């Protein structure tokens, strides 16, 4: 077999880095855009390392584009933002089987759920480091707090 080198990930990355034109609301905002490909500087079996960009943006207004995964519980105070539309866990039924590149979003005010195939843009204050949601026990590494979102 032969290698094939253009990946969907690369295409997604290229799409994500296209200038965000024609989005009035976003153009007004001062949020720093962050893409899923920029979350980690290093991947490894013994752990991941957050990227310099994530460390620099911590505590600052940040915007991210992705897809809303269905809420864990209807009353959960957060939802999970994923890079590609996804099911909760394609092959089993444990909450622990999420991919590494997810961001937990704590909303400022309750908003309605959007379809999992709809791209959304989330704006909030970026936070990194391990955090266990007190209500659900869900452990996350990256969060957007005081967040709001809109469809793109």
């Amino acid at each position, binding site marked *: 077999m032969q290698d094939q080198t253009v990946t969907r990930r690369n295409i997604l990355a290229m799409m994500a880095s296209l200038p965000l034109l024609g989005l009035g609301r976003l153009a007004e905002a001062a949020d720093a855009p962050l893409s899923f490909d920029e979350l980690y500087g290093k*991947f490894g079996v013994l752990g991941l390392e957050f990227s310099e960009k994530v460390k620099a943006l911590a505590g600052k207004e940040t915007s991210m584009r992705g897809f809303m995964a269905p809420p864990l519980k209807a009353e959960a105070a957060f939802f999970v933002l994923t890079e590609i539309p996804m099911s909760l866990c394609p092959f089993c039924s444990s909450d622990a089987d999420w991919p590494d590149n997810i961001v937990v979003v704590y909303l400022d005010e309750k908003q309605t759920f959007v379809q999992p195939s709809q791209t959304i843009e989330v704006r909030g204050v970026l936070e990194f480091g391990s955090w266990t949601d007190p209500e659900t026990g869900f452990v996350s590494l990256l969060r957007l707090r005081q967040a709001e979102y809109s469809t793109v």
Partner: protein
Amino acid sequence: MRMIFAALAATTILAGAAQATTVYPLDRATILAGSPFDFKVELDKQVKAEDVKITVNGQDYKTVLGGEAKFVELEKGKEDKALGSAIILRGLTIAAPGDYKVEVSAGDETKSVTWNVYGTGDAPKAKNVIFLIGDGLSVAHRTAARIMSKGMTEGKANGRLNMDDVPPAAFIGTSATNAVATDSANTMSAYMTGHKTAVNAIGVYADRTPDSLDDPRVETIAEAVRRQTKKSIGIVATAEIEDATPAAVVSHTRNRNDKADIVGMLLDVKPEVVLGGGSAYFLGKDVPGSKRKDDKDYIKLFQDAGYKLATDKNELAANASAEGNLLGLFHTGNMDVTLDREFLKKGTVEKFPNQPGLVQMATVALDRLSKNPDGFFLMVEGSSIDKMSHPLDWDRAVVDTIEFDKVVGLAREFQKANPDTLIVVTGDHTHGVSIIGTVDDEKPGTEMREKVGTYAEAGFPNYTDENGDGYPDKIDVTRRLFIAANNGPDHYETFRPKLDGPFVPAIQNEKKEYVANEQYKDVPGAVFVQGNIPKSGDSGVHAVDDVVLQSDGPGSEGFRGYMEQSDVYKVLADAFALGAKQTN
């Protein structure tokens, strides 16, 4: 009329809610003589200790089972629901083979079960056992692997897989204790303990209490090998090493998702070789990438216990002959499949570019374990045959079947040089999958459905293997196998290999229903396929069909005809004479 119907419905519900008195191990359980197991009686009602009478073969149970059981006056379910009284005796053993009739009475409840305790020969038939399991390996996987790898001319295969020359030995019934359907936890547990259990359970009978770690235990093969022999133990998988199949070699839990606990159970047994994915459950929760909810650093705990660590294929090669035990973890989650790892570089290969394959891992494991003069038990799982069959990604499942077959070849070579080795090649359960013909891009028109060739119109596929590596040079040939599932969620059939990464047929909506993934809607010629399983189902499911078991080497004559999955353990135990102490 309406009222009568309502009354009937109410009666049915009440009758359904009442549980029968249950004794674990269940009726018709088969138990290796001398192997520790837990005995539990669950009563429907709350009774007093003095009201319970238990006899075994007519004698007071304490005489035969060798201990006094703990009486629990009231077991509680979720939200403190009263479940009834229970009697529990843990870790008992029965030394003498034979039938044991257990009779329980308490108030107006009675229950009788019979266990068969079996012994083994005094001397082992085999020094080594290599247990090769293709997770989900069904007949279609091997047929497709043969055609993709070797080709076919005028109806005859142009070559043979390694597994084609392992004698077929038995059909295996895989059903669970609580359902005709089955999963990798209870199926591998049956192979590795000799006891059938419930879906999602490993190394335990599934009791009624909510705690998943308190269920009545039975001995695993790794524990039996440790107890009775000086043999080494190896576990190799491409899945997370704490996933159900590899976990079943060593662990005990009602819930296969207790992966953080399973890592601890792995350390309790300390297999000499442990190779696979799933490092996320070895890292304390503050380490990015961890999936633990505590601070335990199992990498360090394994190293402290004398393990060398390898995290990619170069470190695996460098540590191939290192002293001590070997822990190889090559991915935080499941390792990438062969098609992505070696050829397309999709999936998560960019993040983990140096993952070894199953063949390299099995080679290192065999080299290390075979240094033990007392022999070894090695379990190798081709994990992703199943992991790619669930999302209906047949090309990835078949290419991983070819990789698994190369491990069969490796084991056969080892067996030639070491004829005192028993090899078992089997699946743990099947999938609802069949090959029905070909898809031919050269057929006229744009409707992909019309390009499906059935009967004479199928012709033969045009895969090639010019470089002779056993894998097709490419999977997106113009005339390829058409492989289809008999079940699944709503999805789009694209009639093409998924070159951009593993197929995700369905995604969940806000009602927790799985809907067809629209990502594939606009692939030219894609057709919508209506699902035929509940909308809560995310992917294709396991089949109830028998599994084919093949075996060669000393002891393999024990496999014959139709066998319950749990009876396979008896043959393994007899091959190693696990009824007899060999550690002196």
